């Protein structure tokens, strides 16, 4: 079936089987492999994307549900084309060593984006609670929490203009 939605700022029309999961559509049909699949039970959060601004696990969402909506994946956050410019949240993860093997990272960053969208100045406890749906096996979370707090601050900082 045909599904129309906005993907990373661009209108898209995709022809998929109705039973296709969004994670599968992104990875197999659209070659957007930054969204990862780490479990079968919607526990790990490696597949988190933003759908209409909310963090959703793309392994639990069927492609037809995207109709008319707005989807943002890790690929849409920054660094278009050959640019090496990172979004402030990505930059915060880089600066604070908020990633190791990188597999959970796209889900962590997208979860962080949704979190900060709803709560521009999260506390450490709020960030830890907000990461309840994301598992990282490498970092022990400490630097991810630090990254999200720093990323939130950077996103809220007024533009310096220079």
């Amino acid at each position, binding site marked *: 079936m045909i599904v129309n939605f906005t993907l990373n700022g661009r209108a898209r029309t995709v022809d998929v089987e109705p039973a296709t999961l969004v994670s599968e559509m992104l*990875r197999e049909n659209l*070659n*957007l*492999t*930054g*969204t*990862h*699949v*780490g*479990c*079968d*039970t919607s*526990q*790990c959060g*490696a597949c988190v994307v933003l759908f209409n601004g909310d963090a959703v696990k793309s392994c639990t969402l069927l492609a037809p549900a995207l109709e008319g909506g707005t989807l943002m*994946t*890790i*690929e849409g*956050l*920054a*660094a278009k084309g050959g640019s*090496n410019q*990172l979004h402030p949240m*990505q930059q915060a*993860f*880089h*600066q604070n*060593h908020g*990633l*190791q*093997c*990188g*597999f*959970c*990272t*796209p889900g962590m*960053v997208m979860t962080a984006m949704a979190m900060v969208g709803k709560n521009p100045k999260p506390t*450490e*406890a709020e*960030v*830890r*609670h907000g*990461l*309840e749906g*994301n*598992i*990282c*096996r*490498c*970092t*022990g*979370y*400490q*630097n*991810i*929490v630090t990254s999200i707090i720093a990323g939130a601050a950077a996103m809220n900082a007024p533009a310096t203009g220079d």
Partner: protein
Amino acid sequence: MSNIIGIGESPRRKEDFRFLTGRGNYVADMKRPDATVGVFIRSPHAHAAIRSIDTTAALALPGVEVILTGDDVAADGLGGMPCGWGISNAEGVPMKEPAFPMLAQGKVRFVGDMVAFVVADTLAQARAAAELVKINYDVLPAVVGVLEAVRPGAPQLFDDVPNNLCCDWEMGDKAAVAVAFRKAAHVARLSLVNNRLIGNPMEPRSAIAEYNAGTGHYTLWTTSQFPHVVRFLMAALVLNIPEQKLRVVAPDVGGGFGVKQFHYGEEAVITWAARRVGRPIKWVADRSEGFVSDRHGRDHVTEAELALDENGKFLALKVHTLANMGAYLSTFGPNIPTNLYAPLLGGVYTTPVIYCNVKVVFTNTVPVDAYRGAGRPEATFVVERIVDVAAAEMGIDRVEIRRRNIIPKEAYPYQTPMLVEYDSGDPMGCLEGALVAADVAGFAERKAASEREGKFRGLGYSTYVEACGLAPSRFAGRLGARGGLYESATVRVHPTGQVTVLIGTHNHGQGHETTFAQIISEKLGVNFENVDIVFGDTDRVQFGMGTYGSRSLVVGGAALSKAGDKVVVKGKKIAAHLLEAGEHDIEFKEGVFSVAGTDRSKTFQEIAGAAYVPHNYPLEVLEPGLEEQAYYDPINFTYPGGCHIAEVEIDPETGIVTLVRYTAVDDVGTVINPMIVEGQLHGGIVQGVGQALFEGAVYDEVSGQLLSGSFMDYTMPRADHVPNMNIQTHSTLCTHTPMGVKGCGEVGTIGSPAAVINSVVDALSHLGVQHVDMPATPNRIWRIIQNATMPQAAE
């Protein structure tokens, strides 16, 4: 603009950009033209005879290319999965080493054992076909626990392995230990279980294989920590194909923790099948498949006894362990609960005599092998727990008993009674530092505050040491290793003076692309951004043993350092020619070759250019080009260690244990990148906290089904389970590695389980609790509290 970034600095990681922008290249992300999809059919039974396999209906489905079974493996005369270690008992009798077929032949021995491989055009077709394969099993009684497996009358996995005993192994001086126990003023005894764990790296295992009929070359992309070892084992011992015609690539790998450091049957089957099918095949494990096929870790049952004199000095330690091997011997399997366990039972203490007996046992469970720490967390847990038990029984403070027994700094190098010689260390310095960092002085006040809230608070210590930097080949060979454990590195200087490093270790989160670049940036005076690190491809990198056992920096970094030294030596020769000076008059510093005492000099870039454009060059004595390679085999293990202090609060109403503070003061030798070392410690500690509080693989004792078979059932730490940790280093330098490094990948996982459980026991000590098995789940703790406070309700 010079941008030399060297040892001790914390540049941000080079590898981050691709991961942060969704441009990582994991195996499951790759697509090959005309690829098929492979699905494994796995045994639903823990123990069964295969009576028949009927593939007729499945093969008739559209899109199905092939269905392979154990009969096809036998018909092609292929080998089984090899074990890299051969251990022996005290009389020198080798371990029992039953065949481990790629696909089951005649019998299945664990839930998840591979029975058949289905290849089809699409995943849906392959799964549909797998459903139609008719397999008739005669289900047999199964045994999953080690205590049950060695009992008379237990189900037998193999006809030629009586009592399921792979090896009755020992180390140490049994007679001397018996003498020491007779002199003891006190003997502390402890029975404990080291819980079975499942590593669960976030990226599931996966592979793609293809065969080029035109050249006879195979390529396997696989989620591996050691692609060269996979190539060697698979080519030489399993598939019998020419090693030079097999390329193994491990691209970005989403975490390993040991789970991906074995040669798996799936790798061999898919490579073999790719030639038969003539098209690429892709297999991606789903998580539930990973639970029943990724090698598990730990799973010990142990009885330990510590003899002490009247002052609390340790006289002798005696340890008897039953170690679960699962159904077959995995790549490193029998090495883990023996050679990587017993030698560490001395801990950081002066215990003069030790004896350890390990019965290595087969059961109807997933094969057990190395998981982060591998043997050393188990040893540390035994030692640090029984020290606390002894302290409690003798009425000696837990810090004081450690002070009385810790090896003093000036006693290093220290020969332990269990083969290993610690080259360097300062465990007392780590302990004293941790006491301050953890504010132990303020604990009584915090405990009182918890009590006012109706909570129990406890503090736990773990003063530990581990052996890593695996490993001196000669030493390992004596212990049963069937391969070497060196590492190799090539430093390829390009005509521009920019550098590519080709190294045999594998980076899957450890930050090698950054730390190894720092080593070369400093050594050659090359800008940090002008050094790239290449790994994980047998067609690009000369050779390597891979990444495990905290060896990458210790062994691989040493090879890299040596190769860098060779580049400098050759560069000096070129510079001497160009500057018309004697070779010994050339000095090299921060990227400049100069004639001592003069202002005549050449930059590293100019020397590289001259090496590749040798118009003015000593061609009669020196080859053009600037590329050097080194292999490094360590002369000893390295011995990182430290002191971890955990503080927990327990809610007696619910049994929930909350880790409220965690302090680690670790000695990892020279620190190349403090940011990365701290990150490794964070991650390692939280994995150890996972073992202590949450994680445990649970099998049904009758059916042998894995009950904890998904992320719904197997609890791993999440962000709100752990506090921010206080990490510090207290380094002594390794005396035998080129840079003084000791390794840091596993220390967190080794030190932390004991610290956490010791704090839990401390919190419950007023109830008379002496030991708590892992994981300390709310259910377990609540029952302990109920039994202690309401004895009449105990049953």
